């Protein structure tokens, strides 16, 4: 009984060590950067504003098809939160922000200037078919709950500016704050918020689940999306290549198909 017991115990330990080795090997391969001659390669981490979700998923797939050695890891959040994560040292190679102001702290250190690559204005979003008949910003004052992005997130900042600029005052206890543009959209499409203010491209991406109401140009805001390379970026080859690809005719066509305008 004794020897057999000891043996099986050792076997367990060996199996555990083996698993650990496998796990660490897995980590190692995913973060290795294999510069293969002139061909760019490796993994780039692209952190993007949540409103870019659908467009960037397509663009990343297309980019990977052009550069089979490169893997693009995408992460989406509100630009303000990404900026805070970068400030805390998050290992991000490229930051696509919905607000130029948010890239300022990193752009001074960046090897190349930030590039503007897309624009979108904002819209009122309502439930599918606009059951409450919302026509203008002032109608928002009479609905029960309006979903807005967090005040620091670009879409929240723009929405607050738009409301202030058009003289519509919503009381705080009728505003629910979601952390990003996509979460704000979700509060209207899936949740019980009556209306919200998000990017026009978000309304388009929601398809039949939401109906948009145009905000007049005089009161609207055009968000300019910029991309910047983070200075401590691991992948010095692929990151500029992805940045350049965003200005290519192909990427511009993709962005336009998702409702963005391009410079």
């Amino acid at each position, binding site marked *: 009984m004794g020897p057999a017991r000891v043996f099986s115990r050792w076997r367990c330990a060996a199996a555990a060590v083996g698993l650990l080795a496998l796990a660490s090997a897995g980590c190692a391969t995913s973060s290795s950067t294999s510069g293969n001659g002139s061909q760019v390669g490796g993994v780039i981490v692209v952190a993007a504003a949540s409103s870019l979700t659908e467009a960037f998923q397509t663009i990343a797939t297309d980019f990977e098809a052009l550069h089979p050695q490169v893997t693009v890891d995408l992460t989406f959040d509100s630009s303000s939160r990404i900026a805070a994560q970068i400030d805390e040292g998050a290992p991000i190679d490229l930051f696509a922000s919905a607000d130029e102001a948010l890239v300022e702290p990193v752009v001074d250190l960046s090897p190349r200037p930030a590039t503007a690559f897309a624009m979108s204005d904002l819209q009122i979003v309502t439930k599918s078919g606009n059951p409450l008949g919302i026509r203008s910003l002032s109608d928002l004052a009479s609905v029960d709950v309006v979903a807005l992005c967090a005040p620091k997130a670009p879409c929240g900042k723009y929405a607050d500016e738009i409301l202030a600029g058009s003289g519509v005052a919503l009381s705080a*206890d009728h505003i629910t704050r979601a952390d990003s543009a996509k979460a704000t959209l979700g509060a209207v499409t899936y949740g019980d918020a009556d209306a919200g203010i998000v990017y026009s491209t978000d309304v388009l991406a929601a398809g039949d689940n939401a109906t948009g109401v145009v905000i007049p140009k005089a009161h609207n805001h055009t968000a300019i999306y910029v991309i910047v390379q983070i200075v401590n970026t691991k992948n010095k080859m692929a990151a500029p290549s992805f940045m350049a690809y965003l200005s290519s005719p192909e990427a511009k066509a993709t962005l336009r198909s998702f409702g963005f305008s391009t410079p």
Partner: protein
Amino acid sequence: MRLQPLQRKRGARRVPVLLLIPAVFAIVFLVVPIIGLLQKVVWGDLFHDLTTPQARAAIALSLRCSLWATVLAVLFGVPLAWLLARVEFRGRAVVRALALLPLVLPPVVGGVALLSAFGRRGLIGEPLDAAFGIHFTFTATGVVLAETFVALPFVVITVEAALRAMDRRLEDAASTLGASRFTVLRRITFPAIAPALSGGVALAWARALGEFGATITFAGNIEGRTRTAPLAVYLLLDSQPQTAIALSLVMVAICIGVLTLLRGRWLVRQ
């Protein structure tokens, strides 16, 4: 003969290094984040940060909703625990699993589920809205509902275990001696499960107080209405980090307080 106990004592004191090293790592891993939080606190401004209108509204709402949720969890959880412990019926294992589901379910999924049931277009929410104009979303009642959903299992799990562990012969003896069912419950059953119940209540309350995912998904994030302390921490982290950290500190302090009061009572039977 006096040597033997001495030897055993010495043996018990020797801690195997193979266990000690990972155990120390575990302690460090659990403690370092709290230290990290503490060193971010601006102690001089703490009082000011906690008395800002936003922080005060969040703390007040959190306390109110979590206490209501705890009361509801006890009112509904204890009878359910009794049913699971004392009544044999078909599908009892399934009912028990369902009662514990919120414990392991991702809270955001719980929020989506609550929305599908009690939202304005939900299974129950839609008829309630049509008939009485009652809604739960974006209301403090919705927060209480979300918190009760996640807190209930703690009451059920602790009370059921206590009911199973207690000596039922005491109850039988009391009945034989002529005590009414209510007297048995009050004089025998309740005192026997009281320590476990208090543990369950404390855990349920701590869980309700910390609820985030189900709340933000189901009840929204409206200042003063549904923005509880955890939601305020998340929202304020990029705009007013100092207030967010101060609120986090309050919640850490409350949780440590709860655990100190319990002294591991819900795990170790006394």
